[in-house]
């Protein structure tokens, strides 16, 4: 039986086990008084228990067997091959074995399939069949055994609920660990690659260097000199653009949220909120060419009109457009938390003769602050991680400057440029991407910790 068929049958068995367990628990119980039984747990818990007893071992075996059987069968086939094939080199042997497996699976012999190969293919097929048969038998046997053993445990005083809930808890722990372990895995791999990078470029040069020019020689014979990997211009560029974006998005977003939740009537709200959320759904590429083709020229012309000389690509253009992009993150979340502030709290303030704006400033905003900070944080991480707009509007030049009218570049943009195009995967140029990633991760982590701390402090004070 193929695996999916085994699974379906197994599922049917489990349902059967569930019904059996539930029925049995009702049968072994005695009625104490009108409709109450002396069972420890409710009947369906006994059903789940049986299903788990039958399901967990058999599924585990099924999983392991399916995972390992092809490699075992292959190695068995290989060890039975005639000695002249055995003596071939490792690469050639695996080529032959592949040929045999193909032969077995397609079932079509062609001109160069020799007699020993045909034999081996037949051998492979029979092994495969035996394995499948055995697997089916073992899995079903385990499931049925599980049901039988489980049924013996169904007694009124048996704590089926506790057992089932314990298993469910482990399943949940398992799910939670997957997320955590994945994060750990990513961080570790980035860390490891970064360490590789720091072998060729000193850590201090990377962290404190003010010059970024990652062009190293790709081939030995190329004249290109050694690149310089000072990350400071990238970090300042990232911070500059994010700061511009937040300066735009936070006040506008917050004001929007206050207007929508406190002043706007239902009709305005029901139109404005979805429209704002559409703003969040526009692809960043669209924002990008908007920034490059409309905003950047506008800034250049305006700058020239007042006697400044902005470059054609500027941090300001990217920052402004990015700010518009993240307004919905601030406004939507803030609107939700402001609306969630209980009306009774506002009433308390109005009842003391406070005006609407006094109430908003002194009661509503403080009460909603943790949520507002959350929204701003989300917006900030979007800004820091944004790539497309910067590529298109702020350029690739790693200038170390605080002047928003000059071209700058950000960490994410440089990661993209480092990893696109052809290069070796162990050159410092490529590995620098991992170091930048690590830096970005550290910065966002620090930001998160700080704001969590602020929010917690605030909560302690006011909750």
């Amino acid at each position, binding site marked *: 039986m193929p695996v999916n068929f085994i699974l379906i049958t197994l599922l049917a068995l489990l349902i059967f086990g569930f019904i059996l367990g539930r029925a049995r628990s009702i049968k072994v119980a005695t009625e104490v008084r009108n409709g109450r039984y002396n069972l420890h747990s409710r009947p369906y818990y006994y059903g789940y228990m049986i299903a788990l007893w039958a399901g967990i071992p058999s599924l585990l075996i099924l999983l392991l067997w399916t995972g390992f059987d092809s490699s075992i069968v292959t190695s068995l086939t290989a060890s039975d091959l005639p000695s002249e094939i055995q003596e071939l080199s490792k690469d050639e042997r695996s080529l032959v074995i592949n040929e045999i497996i193909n032969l077995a699976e397609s079932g079509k012999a062609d001109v160069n399939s020799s007699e020993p190969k045909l034999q081996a293919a037949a051998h492979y097929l029979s092994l495969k069949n035996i394995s499948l048969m055995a697997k089916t038998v073992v899995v079903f046997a385990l499931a049925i055994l599980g049901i039988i053993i489980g049924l013996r445990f169904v007694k009124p005083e048996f704590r089926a609920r506790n057992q089932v809930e314990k298993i469910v808890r482990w399943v949940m722990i398992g799910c939670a660990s997957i997320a955590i372990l994945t994060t750990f895995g990513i961080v570790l791999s980035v860390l490891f690659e970064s360490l590789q990078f720091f072998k060729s470029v000193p850590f201090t040069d990377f962290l404190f260097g003010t010059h970024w020019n990652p062009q190293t020689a790709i081939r030995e014979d190329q004249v290109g000199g050694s690149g310089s990997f000072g990350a400071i211009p990238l970090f300042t560029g990232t911070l500059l653009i994010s700061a511009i974006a937040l300066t735009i998005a936070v006040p506008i977003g917050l004001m929007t949220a206050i207007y929508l939740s406190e002043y706007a009537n239902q009709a305005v709200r029901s139109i404005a909120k979805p429209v704002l959320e559409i703003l969040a759904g526009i692809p960043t590429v669209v924002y990008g060419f908007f920034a490059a083709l409309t905003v950047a020229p506008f800034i250049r012309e305006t700058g020239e009109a007042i006697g400044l000389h902005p470059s054609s690509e500027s941090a300001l253009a990217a920052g402004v457009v990015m700010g518009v992009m993240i307004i919905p993150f601030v406004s939507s979340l803030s609107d939700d938390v402001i609306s969630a502030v209980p009306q009774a*709290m506002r009433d308390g303030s*109005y*009842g*003391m*003769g*406070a005006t609407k704006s006094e109430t908003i400033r002194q009661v509503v905003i*403080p009460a909603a602050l943790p949520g507002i900070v959350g929204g701003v944080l989300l917006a900030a991480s979007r800004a820091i991680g944004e790539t497309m707009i910067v590529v298109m509007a702020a350029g690739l030049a790693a200038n170390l400057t605080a002047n928003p009218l000059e071209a700058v570049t950000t960490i994410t943009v440089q990661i993209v440029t480092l990893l696109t195009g052809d290069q070796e995967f162990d050159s410092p140029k490529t590995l620098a991407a991992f170091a930048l990633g690590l830096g970005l991760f550290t910065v966002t982590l620090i930001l998160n910790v700080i704001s969590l701390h602020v929010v917690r402090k605030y909560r302690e004070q006011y909750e």
Partner: protein
Amino acid sequence: MVTAMTDTTKEKQMTDQRDSINDRVANKESESNAADNRSSMDDIHKNEEFDIEINGTVGKPFVDNVKMSSRNCDVFYGDKQAIFDVNVDIGNHEILAMIGPSGCGKSTYLRVLNRMNDTIPICRVTGEHKLDGEDIYSKKMDPVLLRARVGMVFQKPNPFPKSIYDNVAYGAKLHGLVRTRSDLDDLVEKSLIRAGLWKEVKDDLHKPGTGLSGGQQQRLCIARTIAVDPEVILMDEPTSALDPIATALIEELMIELSGKYTIAIVTHSMQQAARVSNRTAYFHLGKLVEVNETDKVFTNPEHKLTENYITGRFG
């Protein structure tokens, strides 16, 4: 014990009144307990008593020395009418108690008096309402200024997400009632003492007000209302979460405050109405059934519904 009451005769009179009424209410209550044990025939009986028609307000709804007044007051929540043609005066330095079954519109009427209903979009108030002869619903009247004059203690305690100190100082700071920090400190302390909360919180003034117990929050809300020194104080079940000692303290505070302010209080405790109020108003299904001197309401009510209510036959 707070004894700021200057008018000792008034106090004496109140005490007498309280005692006699308390006896009477207690008697009626034991009667009603007995009634509870009777068969379901009584429920039908109750419904009949429920059906008595209400034609205008009986008793003495109007007074000479008027502080606030309402004429032809109707209140609607959307299409649903919650208050029907209420006509009543609240006298200067008087304590008016409002009693009645749950949902009969006591809170709604109280909120009419400082335009708190403005904050409920579907709520519509009609009729003529005056404070010191001024129409409080006229275009000229700013509800913000009105509420500074007519303060309110809400049914559910609603402290601000601020420290205890800032909760009490909130209104005074808004209205610029004090000039120096030490004046503010004094005001906060005085208000908390009067609300009977000072002893419990004097070392924790900078802890959040929301961290207090329900009863403490209620007293905090009373403290913050009296701190702004309004002319009229509306209290919606101000002692519903308080123990007897704190309740007695708040009742004394009310009697003390009535020397200077006008007070309207909603209460479910008839003993409380009897103990503190000068007049009592009985609301029933959105209508004002009877307004009379408190001792008259509790000893010899004019309306059958009032009598049924205070003797515990329904409600």
